[in-house]
């Protein structure tokens, strides 16, 4: 296949990156889950970004430390993050190799050179290290600017009366459209850079021999292990060990409850003893009855004393008043 007949760099880059991402992902997510169960990783709210950086992309391995220095994207905590990143490297090299060899045989009809996976991975990771921070800064700037512009647009008198839901929708369309366009353009640029790396490798590769059916059979069998029994046994054993590790590490109760919704402290209720409770209640009732009786007695004595005082007062005043006014009936209590 001549250079003219080779697919475009964007097509080549997309073919390899998309397939490599999904080839390595099942293994990476398994390891990530194990680390989560063992409490080695705590991801924060930006799960989409964490997914892209740690699990999906084979090109962010060198870009991530640079990004951490430039933009400080805090995606989570725990020693498992660095460990996951290191473990991802051999997985990505293997995945890039499998995908690239298939592409060379199936789509390009080229003989895949030895060490294709490692060399392609190294080059694409370097491209990623240079390009990712630029993409981050450009897209970040575009998003920030477009948000500010769309906000300021709705600050004008003419648009102040627009209802909230409509305002949010229009603003989102404006800044989302602008930042998505920048993101897509930048990503296509990055993918085309990776595509150029693959293209240069393809140009130097020798053409593959055999007809299409033979090539299909070759790349198909390339994925089938030579000793399937050994492969199956090894996979089962590894799966068993990892499952046991997972279940032994899985927390019995919620691992990290939210600050707002912490588990309430529950105090154990005292043991209920009916006879004791009844006798206590009886004593309490008797006590209360005695108190009531004492209060009533005290009240009666006070009233009696008051009556006496009133009678004395009346007796003292009765002589001069008798001549002038008729005697009134005593006020009822």
């Amino acid at each position, binding site marked *: 296949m001549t250079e003219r007949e080779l697919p475009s760099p964007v097509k080549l880059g997309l073919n390899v990156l998309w397939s490599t991402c999904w080839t390595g992902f099942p293994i990476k*997510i398994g390891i990530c*889950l194990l680390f989560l169960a063992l409490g080695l990783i705590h991801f924060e709210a930006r799960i989409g970004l964490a997914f892209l950086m740690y699990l999906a992309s084979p090109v962010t391995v060198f870009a991530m430390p640079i990004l951490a220095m430039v933009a400080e994207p805090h995606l989570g905590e725990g020693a498992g993050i660095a460990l996951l990143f290191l473990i991802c490297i051999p997985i990505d090299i293997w995945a890039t190799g499998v995908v690239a060899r298939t592409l060379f045989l199936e789509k390009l009809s080229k003989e895949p050179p030895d060490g294709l996976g490692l060399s392609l991975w190294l080059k694409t990771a370097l491209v990623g290290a240079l390009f990712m921070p630029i993409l981050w800064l450009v897209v970040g700037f575009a998003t920030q600017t477009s948000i500010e512009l769309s906000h300021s647009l709705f600050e004008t008198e003419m648009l102040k009366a627009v209802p909230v839901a409509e305002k949010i929708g229009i603003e989102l369309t404006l800044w989302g459209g602008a930042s998505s366009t920048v993101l897509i353009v930048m990503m296509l640029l990055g993918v085309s850079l990776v595509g150029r790396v693959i293209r240069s490798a393809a140009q130097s590769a020798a053409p593959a021999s055999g007809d*299409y059916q033979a090539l299909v059979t070759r790349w198909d069998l390339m994925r089938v292990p030579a000793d399937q029994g050994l492969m199956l046994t090894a996979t089962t054993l590894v799966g068993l060990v990892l499952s046991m590790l997972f279940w032994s590490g*899985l*927390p019995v*109760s*919620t*691992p990290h409850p939210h600050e707002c919704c912490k*588990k309430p402290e529950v105090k154990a209720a005292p043991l209920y003893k009916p006879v004791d409770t009844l006798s206590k209640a009886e004593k309490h009732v008797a006590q209360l009855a005695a108190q009531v009786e004492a209060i009533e007695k005290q009240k009666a004595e006070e009233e009696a004393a008051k009556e006496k005082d009133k009678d004395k007062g009346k007796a003292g005043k009765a002589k001069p008043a008798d001549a002038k006014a008729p005697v009134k009936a005593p006020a009822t209590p």
Partner: protein
Amino acid sequence: MQQTPSSSAELTALEKVIAFVDERVGLKTIQAKMLNEPVPGGSRWAYVFGSILLFIFIMQAVTGILLMFYYVPTADHAFASTQYIIHEVDYGWFLLSYHFWGSTAMVVCVFAHMSQVFLWGAYKSPRELIWLVGLALFGIVMGFGFTGYLLPWDQRAYWATTVGVEIMDKTPVIGDFMARFLKGGAIPGQMTLSRFFVVHVMILPAALMGLAGLHIFLFRAAGPAGPFRGTPEEIKAKTDYFFPRQIWKDIVGMITVFFTICALAFWEPVVLLEEATPDPGDYHPEPEWYFLFLFQLLRLKMFGGEFGQFLGAIALPGAFMALLAALPFIDKDPERNIFKRPIALIGWIVVMAMILLFTVAAIINREFLD
């Protein structure tokens, strides 16, 4: 001299059992029919969503049954029993969170599966019935999400259901009956919870099992559609049987989805809000995320008022579903390549962009209200 067949003593116990069953039900014929189906153009990762959906449903059933051992479907115990599952039952938090994220994964995979069938043009003749049954299954999955959301009986559950039933009420002719039937009273209460619980654990699973069986039967009868591009020579060169490659891909897909759901359960375990009360307080009612776009659509002024609400909540989604159902009968062009069907491609992009836009707008609106 007649040659005697190999003695049955040479067979192992397992082989004997298999031979016994095979003699009676034709096990080997069933196995051959199930595994040796040719897949035109060979196995593909794009074909895994159907199997993944079946796997998610089985896992939802398993975790749902385990949760039912502790869950009490009464208005005065539903919240407390869910709290008990989260805080007291060993690994209860994980089961509940898996069940919660499993429902989300099911919705995502339904969308992915429908998109794949649409973009591949696999709904076209002779696969119209598969598409129609698939649409019914989509409705059932949405029904699972809607009915399951009420069961924890917290403020989020109570108010999402209130909003959902109110939307349903706007359907002409049957809306009032449906709303009254589901609510069982003036406001959501014990009757609502009982009815949602029965629909969630009895009616919908039975309907899903029946329709999923029919879906698979129809799929096997019509056969896989295969890739939408490539020369006949290329497709023939790659054609392969269902076993082992497609099964291997399906298994890897299922394991990946299982790991992803587990990881999400760790990332965001289920946390309940306050117990449900008829007073929303500071809480701003909203439905589950996959209904958010519709909820945000109804906030627009053009969908205000009685007629506007009917238009946005019932007429538009109803018309869209009717269009999807009629699609195989409208689009009779045998061309399946999505890049040669610009209306279909643009239509799919517009629908996806609108769903994404309105969902994100609903999230921003929530922050604005808070």
